[in-house]
């Protein structure tokens, strides 16, 4: 783990014990996070060892255009050690939300970390960066978000784009995107970027990502969109406990009908589970208590790029770009089909008039031919 600053840097284990947790609790945490990382049982030892021997990763956590729900999700993650140690206000070298310092002191702390751990620290970004009007829509300490991002990315070893804002612009990036909210990967091109979309992403997944990095010294396997496969490899629909109702064709049609009470599939009330890659169905939220579908609400597809612009949340309609909201693909299709049928009918009528002579001529010709054949000519 690079240069050691023994006086200042502690291992995760030291820190956990220092916080008054027992070794047993530490091992429980190792088992818990290994499972969340999607690793085999036999890997627990390696994870525990890594946490025991690795120094805490220097982390700079930036906040731009966002609502802080990602941080909220993180600090409310299942296991207390996640909030306390992996990302508590001590190990986070800079985060506006959680750190004790403020004002000039905070900025100084950030610059300190950036200098001391140049090329080593992980830059976590929550929120999108507004590029409109020279970036003035989001300024921190008198400087624009784009300025901050470029500076912080410079010495970062890797960047984690937390949440849909940082990955795709989320709500402020939705049409018409007045501030030109831009996701991180469109600005920073020369660093490895992990995408953790979701509004917010699941806290345990966020912690598991960090521990994965600590354990293996590298980022987990990513998919084509830059998301860790372990958490975004499956659709919500594929791990949804209501899936048997879907396959059985048992659907709720409104949120208060008998079928909804019976726990039927929410497909027809707009569930976006079938087009959303996330681990909600298997990890669930709030200590694994529940997730939206379990609470009777369809998935809104919060971890899919531009999900705000993908049609209404409560209907299985899809807007056709360029048409008004009420115009769905089906409506346009039905109108087009109707128009074509009408056109063909009109053509048929017109043809029977316009081509009458020709038709008759051909008909006569055919008759004469037949007669010729009859006469054996």
């Amino acid at each position, binding site marked *: 783990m690079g240069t050691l600053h023994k006086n200042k840097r502690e291992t995760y284990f030291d820190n956990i014990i220092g916080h008054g947790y027992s070794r047993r609790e530490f091992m429980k945490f190792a088992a818990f996070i290994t499972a969340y990382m999607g690793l085999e049982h036999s890997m627990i030892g390696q994870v525990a060892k890594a946490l025991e021997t690795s120094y805490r990763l220097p982390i700079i956590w930036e906040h731009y255009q966002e609502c802080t729900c990602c941080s909220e999700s993180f600090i409310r993650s299942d296991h207390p050690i996640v909030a306390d140690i992996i990302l508590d206000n001590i190990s986070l070298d800079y985060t506006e939300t959680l750190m004790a310092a403020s004002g000039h002191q905070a900025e100084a702390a950030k610059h300190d970390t950036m200098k001391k751990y140049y090329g080593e620290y992980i830059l976590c970004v929550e929120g999108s960066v507004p590029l409109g009007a020279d970036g003035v829509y989001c300024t921190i300490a008198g400087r624009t978000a784009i300025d901050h991002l470029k500076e912080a990315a410079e010495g970062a070893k890797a960047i984690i784009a937390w949440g849909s804002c940082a990955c795709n612009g989320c709500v402020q990036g939705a049409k018409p995107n007045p501030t030109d909210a831009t996701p991180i990967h469109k600005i920073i091109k020369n660093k490895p970027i992990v995408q953790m979309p979701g509004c917010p992403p699941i806290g345990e997944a966020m912690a598991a990502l960090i521990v994965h990095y600590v354990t293996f010294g590298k980022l987990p396997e990513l998919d084509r969109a830059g998301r860790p496969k372990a958490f975004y490899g499956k659709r919500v629909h594929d791990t949804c406990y209501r899936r048997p109702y879907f396959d059985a064709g048992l659907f709720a049609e409104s949120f208060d009908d008998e079928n909804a009470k019976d726990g039927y599939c929410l497909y027809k009330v707009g569930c976006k589970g079938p*087009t959303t890659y996330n681990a909600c169905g298997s990890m669930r939220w709030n200590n694994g208590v529940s997730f939206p579908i379990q609470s009777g609400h369809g998935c809104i597809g919060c971890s899919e790029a531009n999900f705000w612009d993908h049609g209404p949340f409560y209907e299985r309609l899809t807007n056709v770009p360029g048409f008004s909201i009420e115009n769905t693909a089906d409506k346009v299709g039905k109108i087009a089909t109707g128009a074509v049928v009408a056109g063909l009918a009109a053509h048929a009528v017109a043809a029977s008039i316009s081509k009458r002579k020709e038709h008759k001529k051909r008909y006569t010709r055919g008759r004469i031919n037949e007669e010729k054949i009859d006469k054996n000519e």
Partner: protein
Amino acid sequence: MEKTIQTSDFKRVLVWELPVRICHWITALSVIILTVTGLIIANPPVFMSGAEASESYWFGTVRMIHFITAYIFLVNAIVRIYWAFRGNYYANWRALFPYTKRSWKNVWHVLKVDILLQNEEEEILKNISIGHNYVASISYLVLFLLALVQIFTGFGLYAATSGWWLPQLFAWVPDFLGGDAPTRLIHHAATWLFIVFTLIHVYLVFYHDWLEGRGETSAMISGYKFVRKERLESDEHI
């Protein structure tokens, strides 16, 4: 007008070879099945309540039929493309692309006479198409592109649920299009274009059959069309 009506002899010509006909009807059937099941999947009817999930699997079955038919559609499309390089003049890929000056003349002729229903002063033999005319061939090109769109978006959406290499070949499509939701929208909207195409296609077949009496409709079953002797003697394809 002339007093004597000219008579003409017709010859029976094999236009659509057996593989072409088989491909045609497999395409037709699979498009119908895919459209019906696709529209059901998009908006399933709710006709059961109070039931338990273990009692039924009808929606899963509809989806399964859609997926199996999709494979048939894909394989069939590949066979047809192969035949476009192996088959006779009328099945050949060249007959699909209006790249000669004459074919554009034919397009113009068909638009004028068959679509806008103007009558010709005198009949020009050359204008009679033996296979499909070039307006039709343009529509088949469009259909072919539509089929590609459906194959790419459809298998792209399907890829995540399959470990097999074939659907995996299309796994990049949703990422390329910005997610599953936009991919699904394209897949869904293109279905309507298939419906529109089929209506126009069937109508025009009937129209030509009615007007020309050359067996346009049955040709896709028997393979034969009837062509005037003089037209064959002129030995110019189209």
